[in-house]
């Protein structure tokens, strides 16, 4: 008799493939996005079944939620120019097919290299966990063992948001302001949700030290709250002085840079955390990253709505 789990897993896998195909091949942009959001949702269920709750959290926040919002935003700009029907160019199609096929072949080749039932690095991480500042394996990898990777990830996010803000400042992207006549029902919802979002993102940040959670998930959630506020006509991020916004956007990268500089000057390795006070440092870094991620998220989505003054006189 086939186990219940197998039935569940096969259903998830089949649904994922169907959703991916529908999302790629449907001619209407809207339908495509609706399928994509559903894809993110089922993907989160798949991560749950693969026993990766950290990834399920990230997928729920970024894959289904934030990417859906960004795609809707992009579709909004595209629709204003040439309608919602897709007009794929054969060259674009051919190129993306080749790239996808190449990546697919590489992935299968890599998969064949992996020995069956490989334990991976989970055991090594579990053994070294007492040496780190936190009690959750994923967080210890992100902010201790492989802090350099996270440093660069925050830098990539910063680059992305700089690009978007620069393009918008110079009007290379078409800007359609959001309709700001907020409905009273929507304002009511936001008024009730905003405190929940704030508390819950704080909780996720704290949970990251000993359970699934952490800076990126908390940041995205906080950013989602910020977007909701902006959409309901409560301007928080868009009212920030431009200079303050820039500093806060780079807070995560600045924190990492400051830390590695100090450690190098003190004669330690790059990002080699000192034994004493490591926990405080990790938590401070997490807060800095969460703030930067949240503001990045808000800037990416409602950036086009930020009241842009003419470029300031730079000293």
């Amino acid at each position: 008799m086939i186990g219940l789990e197998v039935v569940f897993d096969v259903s998830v896998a089949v649904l994922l493939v169907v959703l991916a195909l529908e999302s790629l091949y449907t001619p209407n942009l809207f339908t495509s996005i609706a399928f994509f959001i559903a894809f993110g949702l089922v993907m989160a269920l798949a991560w749950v079944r693969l026993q990766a709750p950290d990834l399920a959290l990230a997928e729920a926040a970024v894959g289904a939620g934030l990417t859906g919002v960004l795609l809707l935003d992009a579709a909004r700009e595209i629709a204003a120019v040439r309608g919602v029907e897709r007009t794929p160019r054969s060259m674009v199609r051919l190129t993306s097919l080749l790239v996808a096929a190449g990546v697919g072949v590489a992935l299968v080749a890599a998969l064949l290299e992996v020995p069956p039932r490989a334990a991976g690095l989970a055991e090594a991480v579990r053994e070294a966990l007492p040496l780190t500042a936190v009690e959750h394996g994923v967080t210890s990898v992100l902010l201790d063992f492989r802090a350099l990777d996270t440093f660069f990830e925050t830098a990539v996010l910063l680059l992305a948001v700089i690009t978007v803000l620069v393009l918008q400042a110079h009007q290379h992207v078409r800007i359609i302001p959001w309709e700001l006549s907020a409905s009273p029902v929507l304002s009511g919802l936001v008024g009730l949700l905003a405190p929940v979002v704030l508390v819950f993102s704080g909780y996720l940040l704290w949970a990251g030290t000993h359970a699934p959670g952490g800076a990126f998930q908390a940041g995205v959630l906080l950013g989602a709250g910020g977007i909701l506020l902006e959409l309901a006509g409560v301007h928080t991020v868009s009212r920030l002085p431009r200079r303050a916004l820039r500093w806060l956007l780079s807070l995560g990268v600045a924190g990492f840079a400051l830390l590695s500089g100090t450690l190098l000057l003190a004669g330690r390795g790059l990002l080699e955390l000192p034994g004493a006070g490591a926990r405080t440092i990790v938590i401070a870094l997490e807060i800095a990253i969460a703030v930067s991620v949240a503001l990045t998220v808000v800037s990416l989505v409602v950036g086009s709505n930020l009241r842009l003054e003419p470029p300031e006189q730079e000293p």
Partner: protein
Amino acid sequence: MVLDGLSLLAVTAGVLFFVSGTLGILRFPDVFSRLHALTKADGLGLGLIVLGLALQATSLAVIGKLALVWIVAALSGSTACYLMAHFELERAQEPHDRA
């Protein structure tokens, strides 16, 4: 035992609401009736499942979190449906509709 039975009953009823909501979405003739089907599955289905799970919960914190999930989903679900119905209604009244 009694709690288990009640739990089974509530979760089953919740799942049935989701099934009938999906049927409604597939079979109902226009977008307004489909919204109607959606809100039933949304509110009652999730509410009953949360109720069933809360009966199994071992701590007050778990019950609190379950309740929070339901409240957030119910609030956002009903707001979303109101906004969509409002949007569709305005669209239906437009003279040059090209749906």
